[in-house]
């Protein structure tokens, strides 16, 4: 290609000096490699970067509307109190005289999910037509973190619990309960 013709003049006199025809072929291998690498990169980043949105509906916090509170049968009501160290505590019914619990468990598959599935089934089995399964009240304490909060809401979706609510007013006895079990 870029070489000087050093084969000496002389020799063939009279003949025209022809410039050698250059090939127009370029090696495209490297370029194609690069292009496909970039394609792969963009394909993966575009499809995976989309975050998911988990919807959450909070109860109406209208101070004048206290009587809108719903009465739920205590055997149907499960309260889940989120404590520290990625642990939580649950009980059925009222805290003064719980029907079951309070029990400490965690967010693993054999933890709260198992309990939720069992209790939900039990409630559905005993209830009539008006019964919509377990009613779960989630009470995150000040020592729990955001991950715990999302995890427990995710469990609700996984176990398919229709009625659940997040309550931000946690009562003193519940905090005492967490303290007793070293979760606060």
């Amino acid at each position, binding site marked *: 290609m870029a070489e000087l013709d050093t084969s000496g003049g002389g020799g063939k006199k009279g003949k025209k000096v022809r410039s050698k025809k250059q090939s127009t072929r370029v090696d495209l291998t490297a370029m194609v490699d690069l292009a496909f690498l970039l394609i792969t990169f963009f394909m993966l980043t575009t499809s995976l970067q989309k*975050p998911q949105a988990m919807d959450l509906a*909070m109860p109406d916090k209208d101070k004048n509307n206290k009587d809108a509170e719903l009465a739920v049968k205590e055997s149907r009501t499960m309260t889940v109190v989120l404590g520290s160290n990625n642990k939580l505590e649950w009980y059925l019914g009222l805290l003064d005289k719980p029907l079951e619990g309070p029990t400490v468990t965690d967010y693993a598959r054999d933890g709260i999910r198992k309990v939720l599935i069992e209790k939900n089934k039990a409630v559905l089995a005993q209830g009539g037509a008006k019964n919509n399964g377990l009613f779960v009240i989630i009470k995150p304490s000040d020592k729990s*973190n955001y991950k715990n909060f999302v995890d427990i809401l995710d469990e609700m979706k996984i176990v398919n619990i229709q009625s659940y609510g997040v309550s931000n007013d946690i009562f003193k006895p519940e905090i005492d309960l967490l303290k007793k079990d070293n979760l606060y």
Partner: protein
Amino acid sequence: MPRVKVKRQSTVTDMTAMCDVAFLLLTFFILTAKFKPDDPLPIDIPASTVQIKVPENNLATLSIVKGRVLFGMSDDDVRGATLDKMGKQYNISFTPEEKKRFSGIDAFGVPIKDLKAFIAANGEERKKMIPGVPVDSTNNELNQWLLQARYATKELHNKDMRVTLKGDNKEEYPTVKKVIETLQDQKINKFSMITSLRVVK
């Protein structure tokens, strides 16, 4: 007797067509790619099993990280309009230049009195200016930001603004509680939380 020679086949293939297609695809992916905005603070979002995508427009994102709250709006025009309204609310006048610069900011976490300095700063300096938007009961600027952004979205796009929470895994609940209560005060009882997809084990 001359030996019969097998003609050597050339190993060179014409890659022009392949190259064309590759670059066409590349262009397509580059143009459609939407990178996630650069967070001023790294946020480790929790995983969940839900598979509903976050909408891209008419959205306000409240990032909660290290006890601080950052406020972000998805649309440029809404950002500008919200800044105008906030200026009126707090008697701070913003120049058109500042408004333009603010329209390019994905998220911020400064009190309104420091906003001018924040807008004037460049990218690197901005990363150091994140004390968070005040959400205390005495000085709840987040409440105002949300309210004005909702007005602006309604006026400009005639749509209701959606609110999403983007919290860090390690974030302690009290901060989250404060933000949720601020939302509830405005009767935003329905909002979303941004999560990543849980990998099934």
